[in-house]
């Protein structure tokens, strides 16, 4: 998450003669212009995310959620990977504890991402900051961080890009959930494999190169074993925690010069 830091700081230092990135954020504003700038920058990204929204809608509908329920989830949760995992866990009766716990585990990364926003967001009022973060998702967070690192001081950028993402996410969910109602037996078309394919695609997006290998092998091994031995869906959290534990135990400190491809 540190790519671009060095060059942005150099630029900022040249402009303001300050080397502490926190002090560059003094003049962050929260304006309609910033909102608009974020909204427009978010449009192409939101269109890309809408594909996931349609797929989520279909999966949610197959899991037994009504169109209104799927739309409500998209409108209030706004976290694609977590929503897809949650509706895959859906059953009758709903395993509420497993669903909510898994949602929290999938979304724990947002704690770190929210922390990265703080140098700029602490200049906003609590109302502005805490309403903005409702609308943050992976994609508009990345856009916003890039904008801040380029020296922009539009505090409403996250909100603007988040609102357009939110609107398309809900609309796409409704489209998918409506279409999902009309599809027949999924196995007939090989669609039973669709969920696996969706999750493999999500996994490819979370892949961070060789450093992902060890935790992922641990997660897969524990999940397969737990799935054979334990009832219910606990193999998912068991596998995930095993992956995190292996990472915590074996993590090697990254050199300060590490450069990764931008996302």
């Amino acid at each position: 998450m540190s790519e671009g830091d060095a060059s942005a700081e150099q630029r900022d230092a040249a402009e303001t003669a300050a080397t502490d990135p926190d002090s560059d954020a003094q003049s962050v504003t929260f304006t309609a212009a910033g909102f608009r700038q974020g909204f427009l920058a978010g449009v192409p990204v939101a269109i890309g995310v809408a594909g996931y929204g349609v797929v989520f809608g279909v999966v949610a509908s197959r899991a037994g959620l009504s169109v209104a329920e799927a739309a409500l989830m998209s409108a209030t949760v706004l976290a694609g990977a977590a929503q897809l995992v949650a509706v895959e866990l859906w059953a009758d009766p709903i395993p509420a504890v497993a669903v909510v716990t898994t949602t929290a585990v999938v979304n724990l990364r947002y704690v770190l991402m929210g922390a990265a926003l703080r140098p700029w967001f602490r200049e906003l009022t609590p109302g502005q900051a805490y309403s903005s973060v409702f609308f943050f998702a992976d994609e508009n967070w990345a856009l916003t961080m890039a904008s801040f690192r380029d020296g922009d001081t539009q505090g409403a950028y996250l909100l603007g890009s988040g609102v357009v993402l939110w609107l398309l996410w809900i609309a796409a969910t409704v489209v998918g959930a409506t279409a999902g109602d009309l599809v027949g037996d999924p196995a007939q078309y090989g669609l039973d494999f669709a969920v696996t394919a969706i999750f493999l695609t999500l996994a490819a997006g979370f892949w961070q190169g060789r450093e992902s290998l060890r935790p992922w092998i641990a997660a897969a091994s524990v999940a397969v074993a737990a799935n054979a031995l334990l009832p219910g869906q606990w193999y998912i959290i068991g596998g995930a925690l095993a992956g995190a534990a292996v990472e915590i135990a074996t993590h090697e400190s990254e050199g300060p010069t590490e450069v990764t491809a931008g996302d």
Partner: protein
Amino acid sequence: MIDSLSLDPTVVAVILAMAAVTYATKASGLWAVGRVDLSERMEAGIDVLPGAVIVSFVAPALANGGVPEWVAAAATLATARKTGNLLASLAVGVGVVLAFRNVL
């Protein structure tokens, strides 16, 4: 078929609980920095969680599958890595699994 506008109270309650924990994760990063000091090691552990959840989800399904699923999984991953496009990798994965099941 479910009425598309129906809102089951239990479902709504679970969704709102999901929304609450999700908002808590999004807001707590803003709140916690400066108050809680996470080690780099801990951050790396949190960072691998979403990928690890997905892997944990998929691994048993693949382990219980057969050759068609394994080949289709490889094709899906290759397409996802190459294009980054969900609909493309979805189409390839489903297409390959269907082809293999009908051939073998």
